[in-house]
């Protein structure tokens, strides 16, 4: 920490004792304003969300978090099913995407021939550029029916004793399909960050391991993975953040069922972000609008907790390795 601090101080004031030049003052001001802008923006958003959800907060209180169902006709609104849907789909997607992304990153950095590396890296990153509405459409028309006709029945007949894999969905939409779609969407983020982390492992360490007679697998397990561990945790959390916030693609494939919390992942559901996207434009009462803000507040708190958690994890891992937080 101390070396970084010293160089940072030196960079800020190149000639100690002398008066700062105009350029330095301007740079300081502009950069400072930019940083302040981000902070103010977050505060404004948080204020607006809390302010908007006031009516719902006073009407439903914390019971909103436990109530399953969304009935704007009779003013019985609750967020439990959406909270469950968000948690189930995003954690599921992370579980599926992490090993895949890890594999892609390892292959691209350590194993692939040079001529494959460029095109495949570009393709993986193109995946991130596909608009979510397109992925959602593909999810409804192509992926859903394929999962319904082939994957869900197979899983149910072989592993049906697990309550998570119950009766397959008739339509191909549902929590399971949404999880798949999210997996595709967070894969490029997690894998490209992992790639950079693996590339950041010093060549001397790797060469030393190989020089000591380690096989490629032993080198990856013994040097690359431990070195990049903290960063990979951060990459996962970033991917999780993306999954939690995704609205449109999820709304298209999750089945829009608001009054169900079920262990069977093949059933329909809905997520916090998805419900807000679907309902906000057409909310007919101030209480419903306010309750949608309440959902947004839950989402905001959820992301905040996750971000802090990520920071803590990364810092702890980094400290254990004797490195400064990356």
């Amino acid at each position: 920490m101390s070396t970084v601090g010293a160089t940072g101080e030196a960079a800020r004031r190149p000639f100690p004792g002398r008066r700062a030049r105009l350029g330095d003052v301007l740079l300081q001001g502009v950069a400072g304003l930019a940083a302040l802008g981000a902070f103010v923006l977050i505060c404004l958003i948080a204020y607006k969300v809390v302010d908007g959800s006031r009516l719902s907060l006073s009407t439903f209180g914390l019971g909103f978090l436990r109530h399953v169902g969304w009935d704007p006709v009779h003013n019985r609104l609750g967020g439990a099913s959406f909270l469950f849907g968000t948690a189930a789909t995003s954690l599921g997607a992370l579980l599926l995407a992490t090993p895949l992304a890890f594999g892609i990153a390892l292959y691209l950095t350590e194993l692939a021939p040079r001529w494959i590396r460029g095109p495949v890296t570009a393709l993986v990153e193109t995946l991130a550029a596909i608009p979510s509405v397109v992925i959602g459409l593909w999810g409804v028309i192509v992926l859903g029916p394929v999962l319904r006709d082939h994957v869900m029945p197979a899983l149910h007949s072989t592993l049906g004793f697990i309550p998570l894999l119950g009766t397959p969905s008739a339509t191909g939409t549902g929590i399971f399909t949404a999880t798949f779609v999210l997996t595709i969407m967070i894969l490029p983020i997690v894998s490209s960050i992992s790639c950079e982390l693996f590339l950041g492992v010093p060549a001397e360490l790797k060469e030393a391991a190989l020089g000591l007679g380690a096989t490629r697998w032993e080198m990856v397990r013994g040097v690359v993975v431990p070195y990049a561990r903290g960063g990979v945790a951060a990459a996962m959390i970033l991917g999780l953040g993306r999954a939690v916030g995704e609205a449109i693609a999820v709304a298209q494939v999750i089945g829009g069922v608001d009054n169900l919390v079920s262990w069977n992942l093949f059933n329909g559901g809905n997520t916090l972000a998805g419900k807000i996207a679907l309902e906000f434009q057409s909310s007919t009462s101030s209480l419903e609008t306010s309750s949608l803000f309440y959902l947004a507040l839950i989402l905001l708190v959820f992301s905040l907790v996750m971000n802090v958690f990520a920071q803590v994890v990364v810092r702890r891992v980094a400290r254990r390795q004797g490195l400064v937080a990356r």
Partner: protein
Amino acid sequence: MPKNGMLIRITLALAAAAVVSTLAVAGAGAAPAKSSGGSLTGAGSSLIAPAVAVWSQLYKNATINYAAIGSGGGIAQISARNVDFGASDAPLTKSQGDGCHGCVQIPWALTATSPVVNVPGVAADKLRLTGTVLANIYLGNVTQWNDPAIKQLNPGLKLPNTKITPVHRSDGSGDTYVFTNYLSKVNKTWKSKVGCATSVSWPTGVGGNKNDGVAAIVRSTPGTIGYVSVAYTIANHLSLARLKNAAGQYVLPTINTIEASAQLVKSAKIPANNKISITNPPKSKEYEHAYPLATFTYVIVPQSSPKAVQLKAFVTWALGSRAQSSIKRLVFAPMPSVVVKKAKSTLATIHS
């Protein structure tokens, strides 16, 4: 740090995604910019969107920009005065009317929502249903296609032993309003348990996002039943269900059957706020061929607006026979003259 390269690449990817999605949105015409000069900007109902698209081609006195963001969105946008007019399939509720601060709603087109089915082994447009059975399907009381209640209505059909999957709109929608309005009229349990609104708490089934979402699920899933705007059933080659009207006839949504339901307004007096419901016309010789799920759709304009002259000109034109007959092929029926007259008298009250 090697992070720089990654950051640049991620930024580029995100920027590309942003550009592509902006283009997609702009392409869909969903940029409700403030209008200027000879243009009118509107937003709302996706049911009326194909009709407005036709109109904007034909209408020469102003450029019409319309964003199909959904009825509720249209009401929100006109309440905030971000657009010159809103469009909604459901009449304004009390709180929406208050929130719009001096808006009037004017019926400007007549169409229907219709149940679509995907039943293996049953030919297109052959299945017969009644309102009661439809309500029981969506309540979860009738769960198999070979249920005696359905068999009884379809003596000539070979109904499969397939589970019924009811599909509904997962976004708030005017179609849902019309559909639940009808079910509330024909089924007491529905009325008390679920009710009628642009979005309701569905007792069973799965949701699809917008008309095309429901259409996609119904088309690809055997055993489903859904409801979509009539214009979408043609484009998507979906199989319609024949609905039994109060007079005992099984009818499909056509210009004639929709027009027949609208005759209801001749006998019923149009209220001051133009809120007209023509679902489930009563049992009478006059409504023998009436389609029970027909609906008016509304344009919502501020009573006082800087664009009042242009708005008046455009809506008057839209109510005229040329505009009305131009959308017949999208299954919008001509409105009864009594409704047109009332619409014009409401229109006369708006001013700049």
